[in-house]
């Protein structure tokens, strides 16, 4: 009796195959267009503070180089350094001047240092500050920051907002 051979499919071990990448290219093209739309061309990068809710505005001006101050419901920061604590939408009494409740001592000291150490920088010379503030904070709290900043030689205030109506 003839012995039955096991069926072996005819597969070439070293064969190559072309991967169809058309759909992947389509996907990447869409992704590229979307990313190009959101590409930031601003020369100044502003990092949004954690827990800080910015108000929306119809303004479409890009930020320029300036001293960055952020005021959230918990802290006042100069750059990334916390300089005062905010509690119940107000500053602690220890951070305010005894005879002038609008004057934030640590903020004035830090801004004064910046003004003295970097007098050659344009934004320091012109006294420009960029303020990121929480949208729910009252004007009374903001006023203290504006007042102290202008006393320290930074009267040009730029308010950071989100794009929207």
């Amino acid at each position: 009796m003839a012995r039955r051979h096991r069926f072996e499919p005819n597969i070439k071990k070293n064969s190559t195959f072309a991967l169809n990448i058309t759909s992947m290219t389509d996907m990447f093209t869409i992704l590229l267009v979307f990313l190009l739309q959101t590409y930031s061309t601003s020369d100044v990068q502003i990092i949004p503070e954690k827990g800080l809710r910015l108000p929306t505005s119809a303004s479409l001006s890009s930020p320029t180089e300036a001293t960055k101050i952020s005021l959230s419901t918990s802290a006042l920061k100069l750059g990334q350094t916390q300089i005062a604590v905010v509690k119940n939408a107000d500053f602690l009494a220890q951070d305010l001047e005894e005879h002038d409740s609008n004057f934030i001592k640590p903020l004035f000291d830090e801004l004064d240092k910046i003004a003295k150490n970097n007098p050659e920088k344009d934004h320091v010379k012109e006294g420009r500050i960029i303020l990121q503030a929480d949208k729910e904070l009252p004007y009374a709290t903001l006023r203290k920051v504006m007042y102290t900043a202008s006393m320290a030689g930074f009267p040009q205030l730029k308010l950071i907002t989100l794009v929207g109506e």
Partner: protein
Amino acid sequence: MRRAKKIKINHNSEFDLDLAPLLAVMVKLVPVLLISSAFVQMMVIETELPQVVSEAIQKQENDPIQKNITLDVDPTQGFTIDISQNNQSTNENIPLKNGLLDFEELHKHMVAIKKLHPEIFKLDLNPDAKIAYKDIVKITDELRQAHDPNIKFPVFDSKKGKVTETPFMFPQIIFANMMEGTHNGKTTSL
């Protein structure tokens, strides 16, 4: 004589385009763009003014006839617009609407005021201490320029020697009550 051999060209032939290099470029571009993309667009409230408007602001500052517009904002009373000229002043009040500040009415009033006083570009803003920051930003939006693109205000262009038009109403907003309770006259402007 031998006839030239005809080359057969199949006009319906198909070929596969090699997309691999294109894909390679895209794979490199996508991470670069992902890093530099701004998914949250942040802007500043700052108005780059045309030269004619800047000149008009300068002119207003040097004007001997002191014409001034002040806007008081109170969470219980609403908006109060005060127009003073030669020691005479007129008041207009915009009451609250459903217990909230009526921004729409404020814009309408300010457009009407600007039409009457097109030479004024500066406004003193006096918000109450309790007014939320988001409301202040909204007020500045209402004051800066007319929402309706068809509404334009006349402004004199000294270089061309004729009157041109601008959509700006009150681009220079000054927090006039910032120094209240102090003896310093400094103010912060936007």
